């Protein structure tokens, strides 16, 4: 698998490719000319929906009285659990969440009823007029003891328990010269997409419904919505519009069930757009994790044993919690390092603390924070350089993964680590100033592509030539800002030699090809695989048809900008070709399974693996305990870069999202109630908090690698948290293990240390 040529390392810059400039859609976005789902306010007959949400974290629902609301001005429909035409449940993994609660509410934000009215204000007024009678129940708020408390669903509050073991960890720990044991806690981070959950449900006039919404998997949503609405799947369609951010927070259904029911009831399009207050209270979050790790090595720093006990708080409903647990477990085994004995146990519990599900990183970044912190603790105890400790234990490129499974890297882990250790930021000796303490930290992480662990994971695409002579590429993926369309366009241009104006990318139509969910960093891999399947034969057909029409030999023709060329001269335009070709002659469709290791009966973990090492430099204010991250340097190994602006933006954006989780972002709950209700209290990074960033790419992908393109949407968040925490320790001597970093706690610890010395 290794190649003889040396790995290339380059610093990434914005590069618009041969055409030298960005595509039109970027300008449309700046100019406000692109409509997001919640901008569809000029639809004829549009009604505005609003949802009544529980103001109790846990209660019996004794009565819901909608009589007054129904008589209010402008109100067209009021619906409750009784009005759900089909299944009053949804959920990607377990259908345990009611569209409208029947007899019990399980979190502050649970939906109870919905209204459609002429104006948003009328809808809100009607919601306020619905009388709800609750009988409060004890609130399950402590995740650690949740399974011993009254069950929120059938069975116990232990939704899932997993364990991964290798060797005898007790015996191995006993043999260690050095052991460190620590507990780590991560926050309930909010996705904070700028466009809150929303969109429109439109009756199609034949009893069906079209959803034009922000979502991440239109095809999967059709299945759930058809069951809720008691409609055949053919009568439900979803247009996943370009949405103002998602990050996993629009993976589960949000407003679709209520909007769909109201649209069917009223026969009119219904818009629901949560405001930020409602989004904070009711929307999806990242799983808070409490994890204890015990890690040991011999006197020379060889890792021998690693024990992990984790509890993930999934909140009131499962959503993608079980899959997040699985990915957390995978990352908690320390996949980059060779450890002969480990025992990783993870529990996923129901509580009344809101709702947790998919979020970029998907449990993996929480685990990597703890694993990398453990390595730093061992290095410190051994008096060894943290880079040296890591290098000693790195897996080679040929070795299987931490669970014994085949893995496919795009570079040797040692190559990436060495590049990180050569970073100009990674220099010892940062002089402490009077007020600002500076320090640098490094962390390393691995991340897989695809749904993983043998879950069904496949998808398709379609290629055709439109009557206007444009090369239309269709995938089911949703565009939420990752510019998958830009990457697809660039891939098609590179492969065919055409211009970007020749390519038309159509995304997110549930009536179009099902490419699987837009999640798990899987889209780029699928796009590359599907284009590789479709393009060669399609191009041959294109040339053959052109040859028939022009009388020139097909092998002498080459597609280029605007049409096919013969010896540098444009012979026939795509448009003319489209007009004269037999119908459907230029349609190609393909499907494929997401790549797994060859010959594996039951795939374990993820086959396609990426790496990132992040070096952080911070300044800590000795007066306030506030931390400023001044620089981040990322070394990534994720295959070839097809679209530099997209790659750079994904790494930079994910890293700052991770910075937020590390330093300021948390949605704490008290008695099940969210303690922040808007962006003035929930603090996401601003431009003033954003560090200077540099992204380097290590590309050591073999020439003939069948998977040279990897998905990088989550990679940037993988190692940033432990790098920042390590830098804080370098600056202050204080190791933070509870996130986000509390300035007051950090200040207290710094002062305690200074008093000692």
């Amino acid at each position: 698998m290794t190649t003889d040529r040396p790995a290339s390392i380059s610093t990434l810059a914005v590069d618009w490719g041969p055409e030298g400039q960005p595509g039109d859609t970027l300008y449309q976005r700046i100019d406000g000319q692109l409509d997001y789902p919640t901008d569809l306010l000029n639809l004829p007959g549009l009604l505005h929906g609003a949802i009544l949400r529980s103001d109790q974290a846990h209660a019996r629902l004794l009565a819901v009285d909608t009589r007054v609301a129904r008589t209010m001005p402008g109100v067209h429909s009021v619906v409750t659990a009784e009005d759900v035409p089909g299944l009053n449940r949804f959920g990607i993994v377990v259908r345990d969440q009611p569209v409208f609660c029947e007899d019990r509410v399980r979190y502050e934000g649970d939906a109870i009823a919905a209204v459609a009215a002429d104006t948003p204000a009328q809808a809100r007024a009607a919601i306020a007029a619905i009388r709800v009678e609750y009988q409060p129940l004890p609130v399950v708020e402590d995740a650690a003891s949740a399974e011993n408390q009254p069950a929120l669903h059938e069975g116990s509050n232990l939704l899932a328990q997993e364990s991964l073991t290798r060797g005898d960890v007790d015996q191995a720990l006993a043999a260690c010269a050095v052991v460190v044991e620590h507990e780590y806690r991560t926050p309930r981070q909010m996705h904070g997409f700028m466009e809150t959950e929303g969109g429109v449900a439109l009756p199609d006039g034949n009893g069906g419904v079209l959803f034009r919404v922000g979502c991440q998997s239109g095809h999967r949503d059709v299945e759930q919505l058809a069951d809720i609405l008691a409609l055949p799947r053919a009568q439900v369609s979803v247009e996943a519009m370009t949405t103002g951010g998602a990050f996993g927070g629009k993976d589960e259904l949000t407003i679709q069930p209520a909007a769909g029911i109201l649209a069917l009831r009223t026969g009119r399009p219904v818009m629901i757009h949560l405001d930020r207050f409602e989004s904070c209270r009711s929307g999806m979050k990242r799983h808070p994790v409490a994890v204890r790790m015990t890690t040991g090595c011999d006197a020379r720093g060889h890792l021998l044993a690693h024990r992990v006990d984790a509890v993930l708080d999934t909140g009131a409903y499962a959503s993608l919690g079980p899959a997040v647990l699985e990915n957390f477990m995978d990352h908690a085994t320390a996949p980059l390092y060779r450890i002969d004995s480990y025992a990783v146990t993870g529990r996923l519990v129901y509580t009344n603390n809101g709702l947790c599900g998919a979020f970029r990183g998907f449990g993996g970044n929480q685990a990597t924070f703890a694993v990398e912190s453990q390595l730093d603790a061992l290095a410190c105890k051994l008096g060894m350089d943290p880079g040296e400790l890591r290098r000693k234990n790195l897996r080679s490129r040929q070795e299987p993964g931490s669970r014994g499974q085949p893995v496919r890297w795009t570079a040797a882990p040692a190559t990436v680590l060495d590049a990180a250790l050569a970073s100009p930021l990674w220099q010892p000796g940062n002089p402490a100033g009077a007020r600002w303490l500076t320090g640098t930290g490094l962390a390393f992480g691995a991340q897989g592509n695809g749904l993983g662990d043998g879950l069904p994971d496949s998808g398709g695409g379609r290629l055709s030539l439109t009557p206007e002579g444009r090369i239309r590429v269709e995938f089911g993926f949703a565009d939420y800002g990752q510019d998958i369309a830009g990457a697809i366009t660039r891939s098609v241009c590179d492969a065919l030699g055409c211009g970007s104006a020749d390519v038309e990318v159509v995304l997110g139509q549930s009536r179009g090809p099902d490419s699987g969910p837009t999640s798990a960093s899987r889209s780029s891999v699928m796009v590359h695989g599907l284009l590789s399947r479709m393009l060669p034969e399609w191009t041959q057909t294109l040339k053959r048809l052109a040859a028939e029409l022009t009388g020139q030999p097909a092998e002498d023709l080459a597609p280029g900008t605007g049409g096919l060329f013969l010896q540098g001269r444009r012979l026939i335009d795509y448009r003319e070709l489209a007009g004269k070709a037999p119908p459907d002659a230029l349609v190609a469709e393909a499907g494929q399974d997401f790549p797994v290791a060859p010959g594996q009966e039951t795939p374990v973990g993820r086959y396609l693996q990426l790496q990132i090492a992040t070096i952080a430099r911070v300044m800590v204010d000795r007066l306030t305990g506030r931390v400023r991250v001044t620089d981040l340097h990322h070394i990534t190994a994720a295959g070839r870069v097809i679209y530099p602006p997209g790659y750079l933006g994904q790494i930079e954006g994910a890293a700052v999202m991770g910075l937020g989780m590390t330093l300021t972002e948390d949605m704490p709950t008290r008695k099940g109630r969210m303690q922040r209700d808007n962006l003035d209290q929930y603090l996401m990074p601003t431009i003033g908090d954003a560090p200077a960033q540099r992204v380097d790419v290590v590309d050591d992908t073999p020439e003939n690698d069948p998977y040279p393109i990897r998905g990088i949407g989550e990679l940037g968040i993988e190692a940033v948290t432990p790098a920042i925490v390590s830098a804080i320790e370098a600056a202050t001597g204080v190791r933070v293990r509870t996130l986000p970093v509390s300035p007051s706690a950090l200040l207290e610890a710094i002062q305690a240390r200074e008093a000692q010395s």
Partner: protein
Amino acid sequence: MKDGDQPLETIRFELNGQAVTRSVPAAAALIDLLRDGGQVTSVRPGCRIGRCGACNVLVDGQVMPACLVMAWQLPGRRIETVEGLSDDPDYLRVRQALARESALQCGYCTPGFALSLVSALRARRQGGPADLTEALTGNLCRCTGYGGLKRAIERHLGPDPTDPSVA
């Protein structure tokens, strides 16, 4: 806009160069006036408390979040949004800088950022503060990590306000 029982007032102001007249409650927020019926959709709600900048507009040339501007404050004012700036040299300069440096991803927040920059460029020419980064601290972007925005400022909008060399 029908808004319950609140009395309606006739409000006259200028929107993107056009005189407009609206019958609305005095306390109606400008953001709702603009978005009602999908008239001006580049002005977008992100928080409705003036924190995120996604609903920014220019009021007499100065950037303000439209969620905090009330109808009664509008008479006689000149309101601009990106829809009305297609010939404005400051806007065109900002637009080109943002695009070239890939300063956006989903783009939901981008018109708001653009208006903050336009407002700051205008103020700077009149001897106001020169720090364009400071001018963006009232805008939130969740996608980019602000890398492209920083590049746009540093490489194309930054040091010299009279420098015409935007690529």
